[in-house]
C-alpha cells in the first residue's frame, strides 16, 4: 500500500473515531427522557407472561398514545443484578415487576419502593388468597403494603408423561406410597423415574420444601423463619430431608442430577424419556404455547401417609408489581396497574397459561392444566411460600441450595444437613 495513503488512512480513522465519539457524547439519559414514556422493567421475556404483558401494553398504548409504555424485559438469571443496580441509580423505571418476600423487605429497607397500602386496601377483594399468610408476607413490611401480586406460583405440582405411564400400565399415583412404588417399577425397567437437574440448587430445594411443608406444616416453617420457636433441625425437618435423601439414594434421579441445570431438567422430561418431574406452575405456562410432544398431565404432590400436615402446600405470590420511589408518572402508573389487574386483561393472561392473581381469571379462561393446578392449590389448608424467597440470601441461596446438592449426592446425612441450616440461620439472625 503506498505510504501516503497509509498515513492518511490512520489519520482519518483517528479523526473519525474521535468525532463520532464526541458527537455521541451527551446522548445519555437526562431527567426529561422518562417522562415521555411509562417505563416498565420485568422478567416477562417470553412464555405466558411475555404474551400477557405484550397484550396489556398494546391495550394501554392504544388508549394512551401520549404516554406509551416502554417495556424492558430482562431474562430471569440477570434480573436481580440489573434491577438492584438500576434502582440504585438516579433514573429508575416508573414501574417494576418484583419477585417478592425477602426482596420486598430489602428494597423497602433501602427506601426504594412506594407505599401502595391505600390502593391495595381498595382493590384487594379482586384478588385470590388476598389475606392468606403467604400473600400478605409477600408485600407487607411493617404493616404497609409495597407491592401487588399479579401472578401466583404453585409448587404443589408434579408433571407426568401420561403416555409413558400408560405404556407401562401405571396409574396416576394417588398417594406417596404409590408414587414410590411406581418409581421403583420404572427404575427396575431401566427408566429414570424423576427428572431433576440441581446445578442451580433451587430445583432440588423445591423438593425439600414440598416435603417440609407436609412433615412440619406451613406455620411451623414460618416459626423457624421468624425465629419464634421452631428450629431447622427439629425432627420434622430432619424427616423431610430423609425423604429427599431416600429418593436420591434409590437412584430415582438422573445420573446428571448434580450438573444438569433447570433447562436440561425440563429438556429431559420433554424428550419423553422420564415419566415424572417436579417443578412449579410456571412451567405449565410455557406449555400452552409449545405443547409437549406427548400427553402431559399434572398432579398435586402425593400426600405422604402419616405426615402431620399433608394438606399444606408450597405456593407463593410469584410476580408482583411495585413502584420505585424515584420513578415518574405516578398517577399513570396506578392507571396502568388498574388496567393490568382488570378482568379483561387478567382473563387474557390466564388464557396464556398464567396463574393470574385476579379472581376468576383462571376460572374464566385458564386452560385446563392451569385450572387444575389452581384447584389443587386453592384447597390447601396452609400455604408456605418458597423458603428460599423468605430467608436472607446467605441462608437460602447459599447454604440451603448447596446443602441440598450435598444431600442429593449423599455427601451429608439428613441430620448434618439440618444442623448446618440451623447453624447458618443462627449466624445470620
Amino acid at each position, binding site marked *: 500500500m503506498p505510504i501516503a495513503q497509509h498515513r492518511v488512512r490512520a489519520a482519518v*480513522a483517528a479523526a473519525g473515531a474521535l468525532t463520532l465519539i464526541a458527537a455521541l457524547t451527551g446522548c*445519555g*439519559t437526562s431527567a426529561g427522557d422518562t417522562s415521555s414514556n411509562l417505563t416498565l422493567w420485568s422478567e416477562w421475556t*417470553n412464555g405466558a407472561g411475555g404474551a400477557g404483558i405484550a397484550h396489556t401494553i398494546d391495550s394501554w398504548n392504544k388508549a394512551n398514545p401520549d404516554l406509551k409504555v416502554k417495556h*424492558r424485559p430482562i431474562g430471569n438469571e440477570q434480573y436481580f443484578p440489573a434491577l438492584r443496580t438500576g434502582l440504585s441509580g438516579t433514573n429508575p423505571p416508573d414501574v417494576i415487576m418484583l419477585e417478592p418476600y425477602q426482596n420486598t423487605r430489602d428494597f423497602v429497607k433501602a427506601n426504594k419502593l412506594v407505599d401502595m397500602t391505600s390502593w391495595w386496601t381498595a382493590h384487594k377483594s379482586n384478588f385470590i388468597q388476598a389475606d392468606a399468610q403467604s400473600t400478605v408476607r409477600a408485600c407487607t413490611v411493617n404493616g404497609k403494603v409495597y407491592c401487588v401480586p399479579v401472578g401466583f406460583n404453585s409448587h404443589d405440582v408434579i408433571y407426568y408423561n401420561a403416555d409413558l405411564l400408560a405404556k407401562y400400565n401405571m396409574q396416576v399415583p394417588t398417594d406417596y406410597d404409590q408414587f414410590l412404588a411406581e418409581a421403583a417399577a420404572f427404575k427396575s425397567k431401566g427408566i429414570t423415574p424423576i427428572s431433576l437437574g440441581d446445578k442451580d440448587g433451587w430445583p432440588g430445594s423445591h423438593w425439600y420444601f414440598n416435603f417440609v411443608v407436609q412433615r412440619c406444616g406451613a406455620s411451623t416453617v414460618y416459626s423457624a423463619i421468624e425465629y419464634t420457636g421452631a428450629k431447622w433441625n427439629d425432627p420434622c425437618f430432619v424427616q423431610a430431608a430423609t425423604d429427599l435423601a431416600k429418593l436420591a439414594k434409590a437412584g430415582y434421579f438422573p445420573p446428571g442430577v448434580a450438573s444438569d441445570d*433447570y433447562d436440561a431438567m425440563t429438556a429431559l422430561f420433554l424428550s*419423553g424419556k422420564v415419566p415424572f418431574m417436579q417443578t412449579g406452575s410456571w412451567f405449565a405456562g410455557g406449555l400452552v404455547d409449545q405443547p409437549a410432544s406427548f400427553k402431559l398431565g399434572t398432579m398435586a404432590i402425593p400426600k405422604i401417609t402419616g405426615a402431620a400436615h399433608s394438606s399444606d402446600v408450597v405456593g407463593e405470590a410469584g410476580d408482583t408489581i411495585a413502584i420505585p420511589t424515584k420513578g415518574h408518572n405516578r398517577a399513570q402508573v396506578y392507571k396502568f396497574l388498574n388496567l393490568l389487574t382488570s378482568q379483561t386483561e387478567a382473563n387474557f393472561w390466564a388464557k396464556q397459561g398464567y396463574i393470574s392473581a385476579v379472581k376468576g381469571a383462571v376460572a374464566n379462561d385458564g386452560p385446563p392444566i392451569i385450572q387444575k393446578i389452581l384447584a389443587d392449590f386453592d384447597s390447601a389448608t396452609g400455604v408456605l411460600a418458597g423458603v428460599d424467597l423468605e430467608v436472607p440470601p446467605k441462608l437460602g441461596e447459599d447454604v440451603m441450595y448447596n446443602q441440598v446438592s450435598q444431600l442429593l449426592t449423599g455427601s451429608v446425612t439428613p441430620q448434618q444437613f439440618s444442623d448446618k441450616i440451623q447453624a447458618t440461620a443462627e449466624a445470620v439472625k
Partner: protein
Amino acid sequence: MTRHRNPAFVALVYVVMTIVALSIAAPVIWMIYSSFKTNNAVLSNTFSLPTSLYLGNFADLFSSGGNMLTWLTNSVVITVLSVIGLVVVSSLAAYGFATFDFRGRELFFLFMLLGLMIPSQALIIAGFQWISILHLLNAYSGLIVTYLGWSSFGILVLRNFFQSVPKELTEAARLDGANHWQVFTRIMLPLARPSISTVVILNFMWIWNDFLYPLIYTSDEDKYTVAVGVLQFQSRAGVQWGTQLAALSIAAAVPLVVFLVFQRQFIRGLMEGAIKS
C-alpha cells in the same frame, strides 16, 4: 528453498490438527444446524441432523416482534467504534513505551497493565455509579468510553512487537530527519500489521460478546446489544431452544466475518512484512 518434509510427520500433523479442529468445531456446527429445528425437535432429538430446514426461528428474530436488527446495529456501532479507538490509542501508547526512555517508565507501564489484571465484572458496580454521574448511561458513548479503557492488552502486545523492530531501522530514519510521527506511521505500523490484526480480532470478539456492561449500563430494550438480547430467550417457562440457537448463530457470525477478513493480514505478513537483508 523449502525443507523437504517427512510424509509420515506431515500425516501425523494433519491427524492432530484434525482431531483438535473437529472437537472444537463440533459444538459450533451443532449450534448452526440446530437453529433450523423447531424448539421441540431440539429437545427430543438433541444431536441428530434436522429432517427439514425450519426457518421459523430466524423469521421470529427479524419479524415485527423481534429486535434482532436493532441489537445488531447497536452491537456493530459500539464494537466498531470501540475497536478503532482501541487500536489508535493502544498503538500510539505502545510506540511511546517502546521508543521513549524516561524515568518511571516501567512503573508507568505496570500501571497501564493493571487493566489486564482485574476481571471486568469487578468494576461494574462502581462503574455504573461513575457513568451515571457523567450522564453517559443508556447511550452508545457510555459503553464506548468504557471499552476504550481496555487498552492494556493492545499496549502490551504492540509494545512487545515494536520493541522487536531492530533499532537500526528507526535510528536510520531519525537520522534522516524523520520525526516520531513519521517513524510511527511509515515504519512501525506497516510492519505491525499481523500484531495489529490480532489486537483488532481479539478486542472485537471480547467487546462483541460482552453482555454484562450493556446489561447494566442500558435501561431500554432498544439499546441492547446482541450479547444481551440473546439472553431474552430464557425464562422460567423454559428456553426457546431453536430461537435461542438461531440468535446465537447470528451473533457468532459477525465476529467470525471480522476474523476471516483480518486474518488475511497474516498471509500478507508472510509475503511482505518480513525484513529482507
